[in-house]
């Protein structure tokens, strides 16, 4: 209920923050929204000597399109994503995802960067960013570097971020015309992690066939799962009931969830299949509307 003692730092610049992380290697964590980290510390499932709060560093929260990418500042609150007209109209997969992260209160503090940097495959943004083929910008002692999303999730609570790194930006390619996406999440109650969830981002070509497909699953293994076979299967095919059903079947087969109180392995895999089917249908609807 009460975290173990730690030192708290509130730097005003990125350089100061990185310096603090480097001064305490192996014993410092970045504090962003705190909605994943603080519950962990309160239950003493983890402890840390130093928290480096990046919440007072200016210019880390933003949403804008530039140079063919949607740029999301790492400290952008989930509620800002939810309220953004740009996200709602052009990035429905992101809008769907933000709306089911925890609950509205948590979303007022939680940040997009934190949701990714925490490395929890049960968080919702990891699968969504896989489906969107996002890039992660890490700023650290060596400066800025860009990490492809496929290389970002290393293991349970482990990412490609090095100890001195701060996740400062997420870059998402602006979808071409004919694109649509959707996120479908099954949860026992509002605020729960996903029993299963599927993120889909599609682009349909002028002939109506699938030109690009991103499909990824939340809480289906120690890292978010990209359903590569399902994606590959869909390329060049018209999205019909039959092709959607087969893609969904392939996605379900890619899920490697653990059994827990949310369900048995077989149940979660079946739900991943069903939700992928629903997400595909919704993504196709939205793509046709574009």
């Amino acid at each position, binding site marked *: 209920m*009460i975290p173990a*003692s730690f030192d*708290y730092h*509130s730097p005003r610049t990125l350089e100061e923050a990185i310096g603090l992380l480097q001064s305490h290697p192996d014993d410092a964590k970045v504090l962003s929204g705190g909605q994943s980290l603080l519950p962990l510390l*309160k*239950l003493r499932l983890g402890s840390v000597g130093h928290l480096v709060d990046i919440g007072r560093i200016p210019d880390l929260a933003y949403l804008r399109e530039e140079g063919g990418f949607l740029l999301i500042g790492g400290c952008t609150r989930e509620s800002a994503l939810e309220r953004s007209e740009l996200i709602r109209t052009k990035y429905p997969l992101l809008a769907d995802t933000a709306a089911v992260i925890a*609950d509205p209160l948590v979303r007022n*503090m939680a940040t997009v960067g934190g949701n990714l940097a925490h490395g929890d495959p049960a968080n919702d943004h990891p699968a969504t960013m896989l489906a969107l083929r996002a890039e992660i910008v890490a700023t650290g002692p060596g400066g800025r570097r860009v990490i492809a999303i496929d290389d970002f999730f290393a293991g349970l609570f482990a990412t490609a971020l090095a100890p001195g790194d701060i996740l400062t930006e997420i870059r998402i390619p602006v979808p071409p015309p004919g694109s649509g996406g959707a996120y479908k999440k099954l949860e026992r109650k509002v605020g729960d992690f996903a029993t299963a969830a599927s993120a889909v981002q599609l682009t349909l070509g002028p002939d109506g066939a699938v030109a690009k497909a991103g499909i990824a699953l939340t809480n289906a293994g120690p890292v978010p799962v990209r359903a590569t076979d399902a994606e590959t299967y869909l390329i060049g095919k018209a999205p019909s009931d039959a092709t959607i059903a087969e893609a969904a079947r392939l996605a379900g087969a890619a899920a490697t969830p653990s059994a827990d109180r949310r369900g048995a392995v077989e149940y979660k895999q079946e739900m991943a299949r069903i939700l992928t089917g629903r997400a595909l249908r919704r993504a196709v609807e939205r793509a046709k509307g574009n």
Partner: protein
Amino acid sequence: MAQHEITLKINGAEKSASVESRLLLVHFLRETLAMTGTHIGCDTTHCGACTVLMDGEPVKSCTVLAVQADGHDVTTVEGLEQGGKLNPIQNGFWQEHGLQCGYCTPGMLMTTSALLERNPDPSEGEIREAISGNLCRCTGYVNIVKSVQHAAAALRQPSPEA
């Protein structure tokens, strides 16, 4: 450092204190400031009984450090009353029986305050979505929704309504 001087506005009044880094905002309010209107209902960031407004936005104060709130504006349920009288939101909950045990109520009131500030005429769906981070074990939410609708209607009136 493990101890910090913080200064924040609580219901418009500036408060300063020396706090441990790990002190949760909810404990700062309840124990350091003896403002026990904000409740603790769970250990797991689920229930929302601890909801306060930070810079006008409802947050779970059990999942915010007091040091994070340094320099910010916090509103608690103690800040709702107007000259010793129930404000329209509190009155709505009174009129429509929006509470039984009252444990979730401060959180419900704060979330409602923020909702009606942002959306003065919410639909039932919007109300239910807005309070979805506040759990109630007593009421089944039906009268809570009615209370919010009552408050919304009262706030939309140009003159004060009992």
